[in-house]
């Protein structure tokens, strides 16, 4: 039986929380820390950028204090070459070979570039990385990423920051059915019900950034989405009833009292 506390594994590592928090978009480190605690996340993404000597306070200290581990990403990379280089810098900076691989193909949709993504994934796996690729909802690409050795696949529900939820649950369910590695919904969650739906569909986990960080009350939304993930996971295990076009009475007809008196017209 599944329960909210049931762990899952990525590359042999057990994770108790099925909500991974993206740290982008929080107004300040304090808000990030509060949301992170409320989300009960174990992993939080971070990005790499040029050092700004004027910047004060490191996000690493914040995440350390909360007690979560860092999942570096390659956000902003448009080529396999840049993504591989960024992953290597991340390994040096954070001492982890886990990488959330993003290779973007278009700056308006921020959709993944399938060709560059697959090339980067293959090179990073060969270089010893544990690769978690942000991918489209294409089941064939997801399978190809698994085939080259990715430790999970992270299909989008809809474009990054769009809050459109899962635009193609049918494709996602095909990915889930066929995947031999964990499937983590990445991008598109707009609110708690989107996260619940993804988990009901059978995702192993949800990664969420903008829906929390850009909510009117990010800390409350962190809690809502955490509960959505847990509710969806429970419902998945509990087994939903099949959809049907006509009603099926939930109250038995047997034993209905009769109010018609014979011989007296109504």
């Amino acid at each position, binding site marked *: 039986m599944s329960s909210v506390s049931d762990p899952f594994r990525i590359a042999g590592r057990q994770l108790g929380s099925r909500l991974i928090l993206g*740290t982008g978009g929080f107004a300040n480190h304090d808000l990030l820390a509060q949301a992170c605690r409320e989300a009960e996340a174990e992993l939080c993404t971070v990005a*790499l*950028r*040029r*050092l700004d000597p004027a910047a004060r306070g*490191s*996000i690493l200290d914040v995440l350390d204090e909360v007690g979560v581990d860092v999942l570096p990403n390659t*956000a902003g990379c448009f080529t396999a070459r840049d993504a591989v*280089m960024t992953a290597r810098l991340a390994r*040096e900076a954070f001492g982890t070979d886990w990488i959330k691989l993003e290779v973007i193909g278009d700056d308006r949709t921020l959709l993944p570039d399938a060709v560059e993504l697959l090339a980067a994934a293959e090179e990073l796996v060969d270089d010893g990385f544990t690769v978690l690729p942000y991918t489209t909802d294409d089941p064939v690409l997801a399978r190809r990423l698994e085939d080259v050795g990715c430790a999970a696949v992270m299909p989008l529900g809809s474009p990054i920051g769009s809050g459109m939820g899962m635009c193609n649950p049918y494709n996602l369910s095909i990915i889930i059915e066929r995947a031999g590695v964990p499937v983590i919904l990445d991008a598109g969650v707009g609110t708690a019900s989107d996260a619940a739906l993804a988990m009901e569909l059978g995702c192993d986990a949800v990664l969420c950034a903008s829906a929390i960080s850009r909510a009117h009350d990010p800390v409350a939304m962190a809690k809502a989405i955490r509960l959505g993930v847990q509710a969806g996971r429970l419902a998945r295990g509990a087994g939903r009833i099949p959809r049907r076009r006509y009603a099926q009475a939930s109250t038995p007809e047997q034993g209905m009292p009769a109010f018609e008196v014979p011989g007296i017209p109504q």
Partner: protein
Amino acid sequence: MNATISDEPDVNVTINGEPRRLQAGATVASVVEMLDVSPGARGVAVALDGEVVTRSRWPQTRLHDGSLVEVVVAIQGG
């Protein structure tokens, strides 16, 4: 000639996109120090000409004329 002054020419390098003129003998470690990064700072990585320079090699990795240096840190993202 004064023996304490290097007769090697200065080097013109690019650090995080900015052109800089550094004394001959400048290393990755001296660049990182110049950027006010403490030697033990966490979450810092350096690429020199497109290759990662591991922290243990910062002191002995010298820059040359035309070197491209990228010094990166963790930020919120993803």
